[in-house]
């Protein structure tokens, strides 16, 4: 041991991490507090001013001083919208983090691999060709289109080889193709432009309890599956070859996690339209706070993403009140600069 020069060795297995990384318990605490605060703010803020104290007592199911009208605003308008925002934000963030683990790339988003393009094409087809029944069919069409986009990308990528780069490139190609088809259809039916675009930019303005209930099963299954694979994604971080030498089947893990992430993203897209950047920004912030282990990144992204989207939606419906901003615009305004920041900070590491 020539290099240690007799320095006294600390016998204990040192668990403290140098640098600023939150301990797991603290990280969970911060994430839960953030979500709770976001929920409370969103419940209180809006066109109708609710009394904060009464709102909190009503929220915990105690008799409160809220008028029947206020109660209706709270329980039939704001809470369903908050609930859907929590689900969508959590789903998009978990899907983004899961994809990032599978592809070992922090810039992959829940909408990649043809998911967003497929959803967009599905929704466009429903709006343009199904006429008045189309509006009701949009969520189903978007859900199916999103899953189909990922399936096509995965199959064409798997043919070209087993590498993650091949898969990502296949996703880009499939995405561009589906978007081209969608643009062509739109160009032939300009009267539907407005409706399609307002869907594309994402919105939670029509959120209902029913929507939340409809996506709940898919959300529960997909999130559970992704969360159970945190350790596998950690092993994958040393590369396919070494992961295999450690006894992991990278192809199998990748297939399971991609399928679950696709389901998560499709469930979110069905009720919200396209909301970008959440799946990139949230896991990145979580990594900065809690480190890169997916056993922490996945559950923390779920909580933080939920809080982030509740806040984003609150901004979307209050900033230009009584009108609303599309929530996709809000997340993009925050997300695009952060995306560039990630690019710059990781480029330095990669070169």
């Amino acid at each position, binding site marked *: 041991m020539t290099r240690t020069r007799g320095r006294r060795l*600390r016998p204990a297995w*040192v*668990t403290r*991490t140098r640098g600023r990384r939150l301990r797991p318990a603290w990280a969970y605490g911060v994430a839960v507090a953030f979500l709770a605060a976001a929920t409370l703010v969103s419940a209180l803020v809006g066109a109708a001013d609710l009394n904060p104290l009464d709102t909190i007592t009503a929220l915990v199911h105690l008799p409160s001083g809220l008028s029947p009208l206020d109660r209706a605003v709270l329980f039939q308008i704001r809470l369903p919208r908050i609930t859907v925002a929590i689900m969508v934000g959590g789903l998009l963030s978990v899907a983004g983090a899961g994809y990032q683990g599978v592809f070992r790339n922090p810039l992959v988003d829940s909408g990649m691999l043809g998911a967003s393009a497929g959803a967009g094409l599905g929704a466009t087809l429903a709006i343009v060709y199904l006429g008045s029944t189309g509006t009701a069919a949009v969520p189903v069409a978007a859900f199916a289109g999103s899953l189909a986009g990922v399936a096509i990308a995965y199959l064409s990528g798997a043919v070209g080889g087993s590498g993650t780069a091949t898969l990502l490139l296949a996703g880009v190609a499939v995405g561009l193709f589906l978007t081209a088809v969608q643009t062509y259809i739109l160009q032939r039916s300009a009267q539907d432009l407005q409706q399609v675009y307002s869907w594309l930019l994402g919105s939670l303005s029509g959120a209902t309890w029913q929507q939340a209930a409809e996506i709940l099963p898919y959300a529960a299954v997909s999130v559970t599956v992704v969360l159970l694979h945190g350790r596998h994604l950690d092993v994958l971080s*040393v590369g396919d070859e070494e992961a295999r*030498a450690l006894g992991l089947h990278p192809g199998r893990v990748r297939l399971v996690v991609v399928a679950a992430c696709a389901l998560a993203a499709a469930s979110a897209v069905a009720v919200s339209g396209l909301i970008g950047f959440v799946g990139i920004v949230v896991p990145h912030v979580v990594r900065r706070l809690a*480190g890169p282990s997916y056993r922490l990144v996945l559950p923390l992204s779920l909580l933080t993403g939920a809080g982030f989207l509740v806040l984003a939606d609150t901004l979307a419906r209050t900033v230009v009140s009584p009108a609303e901003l599309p929530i996709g615009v809000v997340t993009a305004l925050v997300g695009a600069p952060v995306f560039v920041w990630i690019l710059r900070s990781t480029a330095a590491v990669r070169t």
Partner: protein
Amino acid sequence: MSAITIDGLTVDLDHVRILHAVSCAVSPGGWLALIGPNGAGKTTLLRAVAGLLPYRGAIVLDGADLGSLRGRGRARLIAYVPQIPVLPPDLTVQEYVLLGRTPYLGYLSSPGRADHQQAAEASQRLDVARFAGRRLASLSGGERQRVVLARALAQDPKVLLLDEPTSQLDIGYQQQVLELVDDLRRSRGVTVVSTLHDLTQASQYAGHLVLLSDGRVEAAGPPPAVLTQDLIARVYAARVTVTADPAGHPVITPQRPPPAPPDASAPPGAS
């Protein structure tokens, strides 16, 4: 202590035959060094033993053919350290060493107390426990290699496969790492198979050498039998002299070609 016997190992990659019916053996607790020119098939042989490549022929560990053994079962017996391991920059040493316990974990289970204990022991063994909380990106070359070895040791393998374990290190760290490996071999009875570029190091640390050339075994045996001037000249097209160090291990010294006849450009008076 485990013995490996490789019999008729044939590997094709992209329809090119890389290994032609290679046969060799390592005695229990021994150290086998694979030597040979670039492209001879040394790494391919290691990867085949690790189960990372499809192959024909038999790889037998303690009498059991590894051919039927894949995934976690194989990973409990064999640890593989590639020439340039992937070190996720933000992972801590502790998190990384713990990955070595992967073969022992069920699909949905997490590392338990015993796994942490094993990882901690491996870290102390390789003297990396004192910086267990540091990010991998912050480690020096020698520290990195010890951390990677700690991960392999946490795997509690019977066989350790090392691909050029010293290629990224300066001479001091090279010796340190090789001594550590030899120490593990002696104290834990781990059987070591490594590729080594440096022939003198191969002769000093490995008890048995296999010289590969174009995917075939050119020579095999104890270092003095393999590292001869003629063989090295033929296989590597290299000009060397072979002497012996005080312990009797062959020492390979490269030689320059004899000086060209005096030419006009030489400065006057220079001899």
